[in-house]
């Protein structure tokens, strides 16, 4: 294609889209609907992944000893932790401290159950010694946890794995559901776009026929229709992007407040460029393939 044909091609594609404005509008709407859905799921996944990363990066780990351990045995566990090369630092939480903590927790959070009064008759001997351990490299969390768990006298080791597992499971489901839904919507938009182009092609079949006889190459005939498809896809993408940006901008501060502490939401500023790239890519691909599909038949002259 030569540059001087570009003007002709662009002019034709705009004209075609305008002549067929109702169907063009339908195409644009369906593709923007698909892309909005895509954007929403994409942002959910981005946020889940972001929080997974945060959890991975928090190298805190709690090593709980058995309650019946003697002081010497606790001392042995402590030496093991101190000598572990993957551990940066550790802190011992004695039975007494743990008991105080529990009392404090009951007084502040569980007042309706009677607060710390329900511990009447119990003392710190019911508690167990624990160590709060900070791992040097979060990648080693799992192996360190396993190692510590195997020590004599250690009951269990807690770290963020459970939350991580939960988020992973949620994000897997989100992925499956979004793949199916988005896939369906993209296929529908492909067909609607190709149908719209088919109408244009049909309206101009005589012209195409004449062009073929005069000696126009197939690509010269095809380009305006391809541009028309890309144009519709692109407009759909712009609408979808603006809406998604608006919705996220509205929801993000409010949701962040709701989740305060537990779940951190990504700022839109950090993801918009990727989202735009994906949008432009998908919409151009769908627009172009939709039109190539629908013009094929009319080029055989």
């Amino acid at each position, binding site marked *: 294609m030569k540059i*001087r*044909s570009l003007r002709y091609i662009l002019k034709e594609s705009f004209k075609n889209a305008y002549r067929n404005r109702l169907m063009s509008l339908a195409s644009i709407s369906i593709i923007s609907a698909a892309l909005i859905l895509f954007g929403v799921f994409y942002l959910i996944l981005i946020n889940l992944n972001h929080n997974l990363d945060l959890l991975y990066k928090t190298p805190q780990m709690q090593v709980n000893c058995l309650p019946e351990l003697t002081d010497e045995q606790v001392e042995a566990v402590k030496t093991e932790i101190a000598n572990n090369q993957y551990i940066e630092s550790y802190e011992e939480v004695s039975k007494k401290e743990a008991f105080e903590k529990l009392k404090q927790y009951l007084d502040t959070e569980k007042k309706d159950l009677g607060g710390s009064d329900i511990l009447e008759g119990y003392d710190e001997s019911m508690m167990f010694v624990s160590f709060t351990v900070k791992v040097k490299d979060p990648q080693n969390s799992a192996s360190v946890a396993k190692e510590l768990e195997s020590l004599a006298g250690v009951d269990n080791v807690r770290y963020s794995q459970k939350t991580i597992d939960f988020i992973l499971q949620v994000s897997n489901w989100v992925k499956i559901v979004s793949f199916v839904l988005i896939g369906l919507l993209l296929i529908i938009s492909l067909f609607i776009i190709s149908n719209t182009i088919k109408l244009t092609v049909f309206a101009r079949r*005589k012209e195409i026929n004449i062009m073929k006889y*005069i*000696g*126009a190459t197939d690509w010269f005939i095809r380009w305006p229709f391809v541009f028309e498809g890309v144009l519709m896809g692109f407009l759909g993408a712009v609408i979808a992007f603006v809406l998604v940006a608006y919705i996220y901008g509205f929801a993000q501060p409010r949701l962040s407040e709701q989740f305060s502490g537990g779940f951190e939401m990504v700022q839109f500023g950090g993801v918009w460029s990727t989202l735009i790239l994906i949008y432009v890519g998908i919409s151009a691909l769908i627009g172009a393939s939709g039109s190539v599909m629908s013009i094929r038949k009319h080029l055989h002259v």
Partner: protein
Amino acid sequence: MVEFIDVMKRYPNGTVALKGINLKINKGDFAFIVGTSGSGKSTLLKLLMKEETVTEGEVIVNGYQLSTLVPKQIPYLRRGMGMVFQDFRLLPNKTVYENVAFAMEITECLPREIRRQVPMSLALVGLSRKANAYPHQLSGGEQQRVAIARSLVNNPALLIADEPTGNLDPENSWEIVKLLSEVNQRGTTVIVATHEKSIVDAMKKRVIAIDKGKIIRDQQKGLYGDEDTEFKIYSEGKF
């Protein structure tokens, strides 16, 4: 310029439209192809334009061997030939000027060339003053002249006209044929498919008569039908 060598064409439904066609049209020739509808005349033209491909044999046009021509090359084959149809095939939403310029635009000519070439072509067919009119504002004869201007604008070596006077009254028909003859005198090879006896007879040019898929007569300075074939046609009750 144009050569048919042992050409046979069978359509997918089994109809044999042409068989045993051997034909040579030299550069600068003017030839009529005559025959009734269904004689194979249209198929012959379709083979020339590579709208259809031969079943057997070979067609050579402008140095292109059409039996093995790949689809990608068809546009370039067609740029070397101008085509004129019975139904004019002008674009209704473009002016006369734009219709002619369109043929150059799609072959990606320079705007400068287009501005030079289109008025020349319109002048040749005598329509310079109607450049800004739309096809529906013109008479049939004028529309056909626009189509001829369009077919000539890229300076083709060969002009193919398929029943160019089929939709015109005798007076306009005569104008068109004179125009085609002028084009031929400027060096363009012209092939006209027609079944208008009066024109063929008056022109006294080469006549290639086709019937039932075969060339039954190929005559320099011929008439539409000599007495033998006319007798044959009458006796078969075709008229």
